């Protein structure tokens, strides 16, 4: 490995003598490719309008990024664009928190992080925790004829330029806030060229014979964001629904943000330690990465035994599946609830509470629920990180630290996130992940197992054989429980690829659940008035 990168360095030096333009030294990966890893953001006003434009309310002015200045619309499409522009306040799909599509996601005014392995380039965005998984392994998409909001991205290296072809996008996204649009025939070819260690030239060639008279191209710089060491979350739809009251604060479990009512529960008591857990041995002869650590990379499904319908064992109840029970500590398999929280858990099974489960709103499942919702996860191991991409669009970025959790502090306590703040380290062949700063908005499953903002999760990913991980999560939450507890769930590697779950874009159920809740509340109100 070392010698390969040295060779690459020598080869690079030889070229550099001949080509002065390339004398700038680029960071490179172990396999000699330009190293795009890091946090980036576009420097342009392209998100508002790709063309040169004056200001409008909520739309800062800006220089265009379209080569040649204007987008070559067919006449009907030029008229449609003007209609979109006129109606943009209501018609912009991103205004409704729908996935932005490619290339728009690349130049929205939110940072994103690029991760790079020999087989993948992953881009995780702060905006709604959208991600792109770009396959650079030469494989074709395993499922044909699917369209999605973010499309299917396949990449390859053309010298030092990463070239990505994006196909299969639906016709519902726009290029910008100004209403520039496309059809489902869109083909985007992106080129990522590193100009220096802190700048990428981003180009996107747009082909769509249904809408344009010819192929056209945009180009802009992406700048490394040196002042931030992690990206946070802007969950667009959750912010909308919290602001307009469609999703309501529970002061018992949510983090007490400034101006919010204090928790009625008072300060949590100290907890005794959890019980001893049975030992699980890591596998012999595991496949390993260049750094000697077990290779966990891949597409995994949890054999979760219905954990998304209850962590404790229970039978089937009408349309709620029965569960295996995944609690291994306490040994009797029951969660050590405080009395108020057990009562809340039981209450959450009432039909009128179905609306309160954040995943019914298509919000992020949180930790540990993201690991056992019934949809797959892709694990990547780029240098310095473990990254998890969830099919129900969200991500967890886990920076790896050396040794135990002593040096690196989590982010400030008041910054609360749906997926929390995670750091990881290796204990032998076991990956240990420590997660804090959770927001207390999530439920642990559909029957409403309870967790609060005091939740602290320690996860163990124990590779027992290639493609087999014993997953354990120990949850310490002194607001809800009397002692820590641990669940255990096997994760199995498969050969498929992730698809896209656009959830709130097509959520036909939420209104039904809201009707059930509203009817209950109306009855309660009537009952109170009658009294």
């Amino acid at each position, binding site marked *: 490995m070392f010698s390969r990168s040295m060779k690459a360095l020598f080869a690079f030096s030889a070229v550099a003598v001949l080509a002065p333009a390339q004398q700038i030294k680029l960071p490179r990966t172990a396999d000699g490719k330009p190293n795009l890893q890091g946090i980036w953001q576009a420097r342009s006003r392209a998100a508002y309008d790709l063309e040169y434009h004056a200001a409008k309310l909520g739309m800062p002015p800006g220089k265009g990024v379209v080569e040649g200045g204007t987008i070559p619309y067919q006449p009907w499409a030029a008229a449609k664009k003007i209609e979109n522009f006129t109606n943009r306040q209501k018609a912009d799909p991103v205004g409704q928190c729908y996935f932005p599509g490619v290339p728009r996601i690349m130049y929205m005014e939110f940072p994103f992080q690029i991760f790079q392995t020999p087989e993948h380039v992953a881009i995780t965005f702060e905006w709604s925790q959208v991600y792109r998984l770009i396959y650079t392994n030469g494989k074709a998409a395993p499922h044909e004829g699917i369209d999605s909001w973010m499309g299917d991205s396949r990449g390859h290296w053309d010298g030092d330029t990463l070239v990505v072809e994006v196909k299969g996008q639906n016709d519902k996204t726009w290029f910008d806030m100004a209403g520039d649009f496309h059809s489902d025939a869109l083909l985007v070819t992106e080129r990522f060229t590193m100009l220096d260690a802190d700048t990428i030239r981003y180009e996107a060639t747009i082909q769509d014979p249904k809408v344009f008279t010819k192929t056209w191209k945009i180009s802009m710089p992406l700048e490394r964001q040196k002042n931030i060491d992690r990206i946070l979350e802007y969950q667009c739809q959750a912010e909308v629904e919290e602001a307009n009251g469609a999703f309501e604060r529970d002061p018992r479990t949510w983090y007490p943000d400034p101006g919010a009512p204090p928790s009625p529960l008072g300060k949590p008591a100290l907890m005794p330690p959890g019980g001893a857990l049975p030992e699980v041995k890591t596998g012999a002869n595991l496949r390993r990465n260049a750094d000697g650590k077990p290779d966990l990379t891949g597409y995994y499904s949890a054999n979760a035994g219905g954990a998304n319908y209850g962590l404790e064992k229970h039978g089937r109840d*009408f349309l709620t599946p029965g569960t295996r029970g995944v609690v291994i500590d306490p040994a009797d398999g029951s969660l050590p609830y405080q009395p108020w929280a057990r009562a809340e858990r039981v209450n959450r099974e009432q039909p009128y509470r179905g609306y309160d489960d954040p995943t019914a709103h298509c919000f992020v499942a949180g930790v540990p629920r993201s690991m056992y919702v*019934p949809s797959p996860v892709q694990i990547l191991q780029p240098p310095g990180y473990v990254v998890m991409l969830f099919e129900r669009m969200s991500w967890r970025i886990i920076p790896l630290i050396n040794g135990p959790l002593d040096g690196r502090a989590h982010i400030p306590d008041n910054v609360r996130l749906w997926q929390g703040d995670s750091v990881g380290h290796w204990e032998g062949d076991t990956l240990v992940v420590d997660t804090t700063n959770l927001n207390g908005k999530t439920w642990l499953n559909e029957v409403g197992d309870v967790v609060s903002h005091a939740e602290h999760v320690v996860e163990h990913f124990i590779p027992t054989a290639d493609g087999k991980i014993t997953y354990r999560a120990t949850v310490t939450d002194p607001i809800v429980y009397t002692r820590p507890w641990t669940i255990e769930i096997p994760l199995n590697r498969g050969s498929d690829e992730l698809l896209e779950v656009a959830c709130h874009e097509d959520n*036909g159920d939420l209104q039904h659940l809201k009707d059930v809740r509203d009817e209950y509340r109306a009855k309660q109100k009537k009952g109170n008035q009658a009294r």
Partner: protein
Amino acid sequence: MRIGNIVLVMVTLMTGTLLAHHSFTAEFDQNKPVKLSGKVTEMKFSNPHSWIYLDVETNGKMVNWALETGSANALIRRGWKKTDLPAGTVLLVDGWQARNGTATANVSSVTFTDGRRLFAGSSNDAAPQK
């Protein structure tokens, strides 16, 4: 008909094998079982759930029912294509109506007129292991 290739001999009731993202028990009513028969008007491939729309004649009036099935991704992984359930296909459906009384149902079984059953999606979390 193409559907013939898709219908699997293994018949799993759709209920409980769906990729739920919300509580079905909360949305649908155990006390409102429905038996429907009618023609498919659309099969909507979507996440978190796909929907079969069915024109059902009730008391001389045509009502378009929305029948909730598995996620598009589960269907795709089962080899389904968008075109596999064409409009006009006649289906017989057992299920439970939504609590809010709309023409919406969670389906427990869907059969063709010749008795074959339609498999409509499954979850990788499917039936819990006991």
